[in-house]
């Protein structure tokens, strides 16, 4: 029988490349560097909300929180109270259950959440094992029972319990590597030192248990999770160099080394783990999100539950090394959802089709053969059960809750009498995270439904209200969005600037971009450094083809955040629309260099290369995009066009066949400058019983939500009128035939003057400039599209030929 190679998964909550790369360059993280040098590294994308118990459960299941059921930091305990989030609410199988079904032995240590432990094939030590007691009991180190249901099998308790390190056992000399001046301080004087002792004690216990199990137990898979980097970072990143003005110099000098110290300590622990395995063991080091360590560090933390999550950065770390894994390469496009599918692929086990993540095939040398099953939930084998618990030992739970309160993740909770309102508030909070989880997956309807249910106007919560407005905008419920903006304004729970930004988004959604821009510019005067605002404004300018304004916005973003891939992408689009292809290529490459898994940036790079007649480079780029966005029809149309031009008959046939399968059908679009000719053409079609979809809406400037990718599906008819400025928003799912009514801009100006009750021949230079600009932009767009069927009509009497 073929020997099964082992897999070691090390989880470092919050680990961030910016700190790691600096320390590795200084030679201070040699263990991780050795892994990277002989393996692959990459960024791993987190999810919204970036809260660790939800993310680590997604990591262990390959599923989003609304599927796995673990929400937030606490959960109802079934007895009218709350307890720290546990494994009881997880509704789906974790990777250790799948391995148990396959007879594979696992050690699972410290996973958050994993209490009560499960009777898996192997050993499991939960995240409550290292938890000390609360309050005055904390001081009694000798009376420290092992937390209930924190060890499986229970026979291991005696072997493991003395490996626990209590915070009070951490002496000052152990703290001195983090705080060099600690010996000059009185420990009791500084709460920060007590907290540091706790983090260090917890990390040491988790590591001691992991090493003990790896050394004494038979195993195929070991997963060890450390929360310490997250806790160290929340506690001390504010003191990380360089010092910012609001940080006291004395505190800065004392604590500026803590974060570096924590990373170095984790590397030392990693070195020990690597010393315990052979070369055939695959090692993965992963984090669930990053942590801002530079100018993006927030100055203050919002005083709301989970407020500290504002310090989290959107990308964590992913490192893998082992047999069959590439060496010395970067990988791209990883998400926390991909960890379990990748582990299953490494172990040659099937991936559940119901998982939201994908196996990271780019880590493997050569082609990796993947197996799939419908779902692990349907596999009829024993995968382990939760250890029965009487739930009567609450001391560790209370201490764990206190730790969450200390970290600012949850509000202080009064249990028992008087605490019921707060318990309801916690349940509401979890539902808020559930709504966020839906929204982050694009399920805005489901999210809105939950948000409307939990929203309570007597206790206005700006986070819920903000999300309601944003979901309402995304689902085109503009009246609902307006209603809530009016309420927020009245309740004064959000600043005027934020409300103006929301109003602007509604106006843009309702086809009034200039009004939206005006509002955004007004807010920008008050918040000149707001990256989000500048990005919004830049995008709107791009949508209405105001190149210079768009470039100004994106350049301002880059002045503040030179690594912002989205700003480079915005610049690329501005240049592309202005047919400045060389600059466009440069900016798209800038974007991709900073964020490789950026499919639309690759797509526009490919399009630009095609327009520059760099056919082979365009094909190579678009073939890559096809793997990133396999459902985007436009890519196939481009490739078909390019293979036709390069006379590749086989590929041309192949792509024609693919397109015929995936395109939803053909839409005939009629458009042109909004002058007399166009109106006559539309009237003439109506008179001949040709159904014109959408014309009434647009002529009356009613809502035409081009932000919704499916907007065109709503309009049926033989011919659809689409104003020229919205061509860029046409969904690539359809094939298009364009009938373009040619008209002279001067005549259109006269016609529009008439509509505006001005003298027909008045010279209106601004209107004329807009019309000329619109026509130029449209012709440019036509030139930039693959496989378009366009008929230009000068004489509308010839319309019959085309309709």
């Amino acid at each position, binding site marked *: 029988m073929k020997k099964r190679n082992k897999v070691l998964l090390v989880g470092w909550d919050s680990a961030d490349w910016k700190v790691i790369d600096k320390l590795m360059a200084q030679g201070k993280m040699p263990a991780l560097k050795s892994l990277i040098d002989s393996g692959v590294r990459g960024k791993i994308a987190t999810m919204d909300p970036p809260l660790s118990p939800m993310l680590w459960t997604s990591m262990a299941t390959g599923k989003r929180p609304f599927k796995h059921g673990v929400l937030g930091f606490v959960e109802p305990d079934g007895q009218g109270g709350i307890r720290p989030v546990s494994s009881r609410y997880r509704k789906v199988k974790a990777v250790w259950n799948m391995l148990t079904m396959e007879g594979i032995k696992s050690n699972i240590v410290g996973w958050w959440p994993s209490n009560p432990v499960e009777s898996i094939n192997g050993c499991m030590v939960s995240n409550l094992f290292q938890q000390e007691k609360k309050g005055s009991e904390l001081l009694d180190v000798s009376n420290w029972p092992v937390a209930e249901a924190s060890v499986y099998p229970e026979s291991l308790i005696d072997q493991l319990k*003395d*490996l626990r390190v209590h915070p009070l056992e951490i002496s000052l*000399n152990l703290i001195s590597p983090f705080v060099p001046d600690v010996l000059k301080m009185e420990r009791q004087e500084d709460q920060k030192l007590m907290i540091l002792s706790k983090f260090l004690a917890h990390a040491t216990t988790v590591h001691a248990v992991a*090493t003990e199990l790896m050394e004494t137990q038979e195993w195929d898979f070991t997963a060890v999770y450390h929360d310490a980097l997250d806790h160290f970072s929340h506690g001390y990143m504010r003191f990380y160099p360089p010092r910012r003005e609001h940080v006291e110099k004395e505190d800065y000098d004392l604590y500026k080394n803590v974060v570096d110290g924590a990373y170095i300590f984790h590397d030392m622990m990693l*070195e020990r783990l690597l010393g315990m395995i052979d070369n055939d063991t695959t090692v993965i080091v992963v984090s669930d999100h990053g942590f801002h360590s530079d100018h993006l560090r927030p100055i203050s933390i919002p005083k709301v539950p989970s407020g500290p999550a504002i310090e989290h950065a959107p990308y964590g770390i992913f490192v893998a090394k082992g047999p069959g894994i590439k060496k010395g390469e970067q990988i791209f496009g990883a998400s926390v959802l991909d960890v379990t599918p990748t582990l299953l692929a490494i172990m040659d086990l099937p991936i559940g089709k119901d998982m939201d993540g994908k196996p990271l095939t780019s880590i493997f040398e050569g082609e990796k053969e993947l197996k799939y099953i419908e779902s692990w939930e349907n596999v009829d084998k024993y995968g382990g059960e939760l250890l029965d618990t009487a739930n009567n030992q609450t001391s560790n739970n209370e201490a764990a809750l206190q730790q969450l309160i200390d970290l600012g993740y949850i509000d202080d909770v009064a249990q028992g009498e008087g605490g019921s309102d707060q318990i309801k508030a916690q349940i509401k909070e979890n539902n808020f995270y559930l709504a966020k989880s839906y929204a982050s997956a694009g399920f805005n309807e489901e999210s809105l439904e939950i948000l409307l249910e939990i929203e309570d106007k007597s206790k206005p919560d700006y986070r819920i209200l903000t999300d309601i407005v944003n979901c309402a905008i995304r689902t085109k419920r503009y009246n609902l969005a307006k209603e809530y903006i009016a309420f927020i304004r009245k309740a004064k729970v959000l600043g005027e600037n934020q409300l103006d930004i929301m109003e602007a988004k509604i106006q843009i959604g309702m086809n009034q971009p200039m009004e939206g821009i005006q509002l955004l510019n007004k807010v920008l005067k008050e918040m000149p450094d707001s990256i989000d605002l500048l990005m919004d404004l830049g995008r709107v300018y791009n949508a209405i083809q105001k190149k210079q304004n768009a470039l100004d916005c994106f350049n301002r973003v880059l002045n503040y955040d030179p690594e912002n891939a989205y700003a480079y992408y915005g610049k690329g689009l501005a240049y592309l629309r202005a047919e400045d292809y060389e600059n466009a290529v440069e900016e798209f490459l800038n974007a991709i260099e900073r964020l490789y898994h950026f499919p639309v940036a690759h797509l526009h790079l490919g399009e630009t290369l095609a327009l520059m007649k760099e056919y082979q480079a365009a094909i190579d780029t678009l073939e890559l995009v096809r793997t990133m966005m396999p459902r985007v029809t436009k890519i196939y149309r481009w490739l078909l066009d390019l293979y036709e031009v390069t006379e590749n008959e086989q590929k041309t046939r192949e792509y024609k066949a693919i397109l015929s399968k995936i395109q939803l059908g053909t839409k005939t679009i009629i458009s042109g400058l909004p002058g007399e000719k166009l109106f006559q053409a539309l009237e003439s079609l109506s008179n001949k019983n040709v159904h014109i979809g959408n014309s009434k809406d647009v002529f009356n400037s009613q809502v035409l939500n081009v932000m919704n990718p499916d907007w065109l599906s709503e309009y049926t008819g033989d011919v659809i009128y689409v104003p020229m400025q919205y061509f860029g928003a046409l969904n690539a799912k359809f094939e298009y035939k364009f009938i373009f009514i040619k008209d002279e801009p001067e005549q259109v100006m006269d016609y529009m003057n008439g509509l505006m009750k001005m003298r027909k021949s008045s010279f209106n230079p601004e209107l004329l400039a807009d019309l000329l600009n619109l026509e130029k932009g449209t012709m440019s767009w036509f030139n930039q599209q693959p496989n378009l069927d366009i008929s230009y009509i000068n004489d509308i009497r010839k319309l019959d030929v085309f309709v």
Partner: protein
Amino acid sequence: MKNKSNSKKILYGGKPYNVPPGGSLGLLALGNIGVRAWKESRDNYLEKNPIQREEKK
């Protein structure tokens, strides 16, 4: 006083490492063997220095 050591010998530069009773970050990073060696050294020290033990309490 303990007569027999439960912990494994820790070598440093090929020679037995004299584990300090106060521990060290390097010992903690060794995991199970480091924690055991540190606790044993500390307990032995406290056995020999009962005043310190009282103060610790």
